[in-house]
C-alpha cells in the first residue's frame, strides 16, 4: 500500500466510506439469501448486492483510480451498467422457471394457473354459448 502515500485525506475517507457501504450491503443481501425461508423470499435478497453494493464499490474504484492517476477514469462504470441491466433479466428468468416447476408439481404454496378448461366448464354450468362469452370480453 505504499503507492497511496500522498493520497488526499478527504478523498481517502470517501473511498473508504463507499467501500464499507458497498461491502456491507452485499453482506446483508447474502445473509438474507442464507436466512429467508422460501425461494420467492430469497430471490429478493441478493439484489441488494447487485444494485447499491455494486454501485458503491464501483464509485469507490472510480474515485480511487481518478485520484491515483490524476485524470478521470470511468471504465469501471461498464461493470455497473452491465450488472444493473443483467440482474433483473436473470432473476425474472429464474423466478419464472421456479414458478413453472412449482406449478407442474402442483405445489399448494403457489397460485395455480387459470386453465382454459376450467373456464369452459364454468360456462357449461352457466348454460351460456361459448362464442358469446369469448366475444363479449368480460374476462381475458
Amino acid at each position, binding site marked *: 500500500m505504499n503507492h497511496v502515500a500522498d493520497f488526499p485525506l478527504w478523498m481517502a475517507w470517501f473511498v473508504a466510506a463507499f467501500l464499507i457501504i458497498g*461491502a456491507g450491503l452485499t453482506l446483508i443481501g447474502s445473509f438474507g439469501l442464507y436466512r429467508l425461508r422460501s425461494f420467492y423470499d430469497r430471490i429478493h435478497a441478493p439484489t441488494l448486492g447487485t444494485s447499491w453494493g455494486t454501485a458503491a464499490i464501483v464509485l469507490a474504484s472510480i474515485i480511487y483510480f481518478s485520484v491515483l492517476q490524476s485524470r478521470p477514469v470511468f471504465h469501471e462504470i461498464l461493470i455497473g451498467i*452491465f450488472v444493473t441491466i443483467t440482474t433483473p433479466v436473470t432473476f425474472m428468468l429464474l423466478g419464472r422457471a421456479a414458478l413453472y416447476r412449482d406449478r407442474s408439481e402442483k405445489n399448494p404454496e403457489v397460485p395455480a394457473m387459470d386453465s382454459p378448461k376450467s373456464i369452459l366448464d364454468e360456462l357449461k354450468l352457466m348454460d351460456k354459448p361459448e362464442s358469446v362469452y369469448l366475444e363479449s370480453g368480460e374476462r381475458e
Partner: protein
Amino acid sequence: MSATILFWAITFAQIMLTIAMVLALTRMIKGPRAQDRVLGLDTLYVNSMLLILVFGIRTGNTLYFEVSLIIGILGFVATVALAKFLMRGEVIE
C-alpha cells in the same frame, strides 16, 4: 494517515465480501431445490466480482477491472443457461 484509512477500509470490505461468499456457498450447498442452488451460484459470482474489484483497489492495478468484468459476463451467461435448463430441460432448442 490516508494509507492507513484505505488499508483498514479495504481489509474490512474484503472480510465482509468473503463472509458474503461463504453464505452464498452455504445456500448453494444446502439447496433445498435446484433453483436455490442456481440463485446461490449467481450471488457467489457477483460477490467474487466485487471482491476482485476491491483487490484491484488494494494493488492499484487496473488489470483486475477486466478480470471482474469477465466474471460478471460469465455469471450472467451461466445463470441464464441454468434458468433455461430448469424451465425446459435443455439449454439450446
